[in-house]
């Protein structure tokens, strides 16, 4: 039953036993880890659609080999990330495996193709039913379940740019509360013309270079990708003898009712989400060794987030913070998931990813913005994701003791 649920005697600890990702830095953990560790910047001219009449011309596209004819770009990204995570976790097909995904637009490029054909050749049905079906995120989720041979509840959270973090947070709560022993979770989004033009219309896209927390920052840059995590009850994972990559320790979520597209200038919901995540993890904010910021590079987001972090930590002057959107852009529904995996990389490989493009740190940043490749041994890290509509989410990850 989805409800009522059995109340656990105690809360379970949540292990991460598999992680897979795809971004413009490459396909898979190794290629991405090397790119994030060194602060490689993966932007280039947009080739997927025509941007000649738009302000911004750059994005972080993934180089994909051709997929199946009816498989859209978003599905390909999702499949690739899942394959890596699934293999790493050594999971097998199952009749009872929950799937929790975050996305903002599912197979949007198929929706665009549907509309173009519908208005240019009305009544021409060729290919349209397939586009209708595969445009929808639940179809992509079912395709994933069939490909990997599992069945179970599918939950798709569309909380704008916090979708990936909310999905992982929800999956975390399912395992922690005992409602699930294992959950496959993550986020995905592919670049699409509608979304690119949308952010461009808002003048939210940088026309120079995405420079999070830079005093002269002028906007975000879009990217695409997917990241998937295999979460499981820690005792279950230990019983299987599988390698534990890290522990997902806390999750916080809050709503910001200030404005549809702008955060409260004081970052109150960001502060609330981060505080709730720390409380959920049973730690004081001062125990955090590194924050992977939402850090979009827009003037409004970065200033609100900087204030919220400073408020959370009190004296945060020595706390390392960075935004990996400088390397791969804003991946929207995948952002929170990719950044959670980057945090996992930092914990397990002993480095902090730099915000490589920032030249002059904004004076509002009362913390130590990481701008160069840095060796470190973070034990406990926090990842922020904030979205349109006021969706705010934060995750706490730590090295598994």
């Amino acid at each position, binding site marked *: 039953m989805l*409800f*009522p649920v059995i109340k656990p005697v105690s809360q379970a600890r949540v292990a991460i036993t598999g992680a897979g990702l795809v971004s413009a830095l490459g396909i898979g953990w190794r290629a991405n880890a090397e790119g994030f560790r060194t602060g490689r910047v993966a932007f280039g001219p947009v080739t997927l659609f025509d941007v000649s*009449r738009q302000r911004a011309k750059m994005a972080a596209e993934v180089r994909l080999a051709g997929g199946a004819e009816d498989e859209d770009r978003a599905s390909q990204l999702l499949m690739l990330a899942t394959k890596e995570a699934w293999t790493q976790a050594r999971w097998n097909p199952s009749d009872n495996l929950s799937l929790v995904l975050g996305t903002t637009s599912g197979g949007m490029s198929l929706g665009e193709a549907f509309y173009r054909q519908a208005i240019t050749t009305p009544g021409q049905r060729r290919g349209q039913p397939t586009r209708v079906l595969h445009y929808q*995120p*639940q179809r992509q989720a079912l395709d994933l379940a069939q490909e990997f041979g599992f069945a*179970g509840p599918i939950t*798709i959270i569309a909380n704008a740019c916090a979708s990936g973090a909310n999905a992982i947070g*929800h999956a975390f709560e399912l395992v922690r509360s005992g409602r699930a022993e294992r959950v496959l979770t993550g986020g995905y989004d592919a670049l699409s013309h509608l979304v690119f033009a949308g952010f461009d219309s808002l003048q939210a896209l940088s026309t120079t270079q995405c420079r999070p927390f830079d005093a002269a920052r002028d906007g975000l840059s879009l990217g695409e990708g997917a990241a998937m995590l295999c979460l499981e009850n820690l005792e279950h994972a230990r019983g299987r003898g599988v390698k534990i990559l890290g522990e997902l320790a806390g999750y916080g979520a809050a709503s910001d009712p200030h404005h549809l597209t702008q955060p409260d200038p004081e970052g109150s919901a960001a502060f609330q989400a981060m505080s709730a995540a720390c409380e959920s993890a049973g730690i004081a904010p001062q125990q955090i060794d590194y924050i992977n910021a939402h850090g979009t590079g827009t003037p409004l987001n970065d200033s609100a987030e900087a204030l919220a972090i400073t408020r959370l930590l009190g004296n945060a002057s020595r706390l390392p913070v960075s935004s990996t959107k400088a390397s791969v852009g804003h991946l929207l529904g995948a952002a929170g998931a990719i950044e959670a995996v980057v945090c996992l990389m930092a914990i397990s490989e002993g480095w902090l990813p730099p915000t490589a493009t920032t030249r002059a740190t904004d004076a509002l940043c009362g913390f130590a913005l990481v701008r160069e490749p840095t060796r470190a041994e973070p034990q406990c890290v926090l990842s922020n994701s904030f979205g349109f509509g006021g969706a705010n989410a934060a995750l706490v990850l730590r090295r598994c003791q």
Partner: protein
Amino acid sequence: MTGVVIGGIGAVSPAGWGLKALRQALDLGAPCPVQKLERPGLNKPLDVRLVPAPAERPACFQHPRLRRGSAITRFAVSAGIEALGKNEVARLGIITCVMSGCVQYSRRFYHEVLDNPASASPLLFPETVFNAPASHLASVLGNVSINYTLVGDPATFLQGLALGAAWVDADRVDGCLVVGAEEADWVTSESFRMFYKGFLLAEGAGAIYLRKPRVESEVALQCVTDSHNYSGRSRAEAAKAMRTQLGGGDLLVDGVQGVRPYDRAEIDAWLDWKTQRISPKLVLGEGLMAASPWQCIAAIDALQHGRCSSAMVSVVGCNQQAIGAQFVRA
């Protein structure tokens, strides 16, 4: 007996704005009027059931967030406010469920992008995002607690209901508003008609406010079945599995809509059911994610008015999952 009850219900439907209009239409049992929706480029308008203009402009429309709000946002906010009523909730969870979502503004915005992306409206784009209705609802209510938008086929509303109930039961929130909403557009109508001729798209919203019990004789959410999804099995098989798990009750509120190929899986699953049955979609049309809360509201309303002591809701979604729920009078 579970510890989660219905604290309020609200609806916007082709029958009109508010619960009263929905209740009257279902009691009457006559199908709501059908309107013609223009399909650009074809001289063949599409039959749909639209929400009529409100007799009086709802007060919430004066909120700054709703000035440019899309139809789906207005439906969701109006139903949500009605369901919440006078309840004052410190930690209010909001779960908004959609399938097609903000399709009208998405179509308009993309059309502008195709015409000239340089002049596409920055006012439209934010309203295209799946969680725009949820964001506006939270803003109108001044809510800062957890807020999820779930996307899926219409059975996802019952998933949302189960999640909201779990949050309330576990004291994650003090109460939870679960909303399902859709707006009609020729794109959605045409898409469904590719699979089911005679499909009658409808629009609107329904909302259910969940909280802990306060007094006796409240209507409680007894259970929500597993998600019987269509991974590796047919829609008919999933419907039967849901029906088996749901068991029995006094009243069945099903999702049959009068389109035989679409209805077959659900009809077959409930072939043995011979007692009371309500089929709201025969009156209101296929409201997708709005239709599932209409079904729940019909069940809850019957319980609140003493017409039965337990009521089941069956949702056999179009392309993801079959889920059932049972409500009881405590």
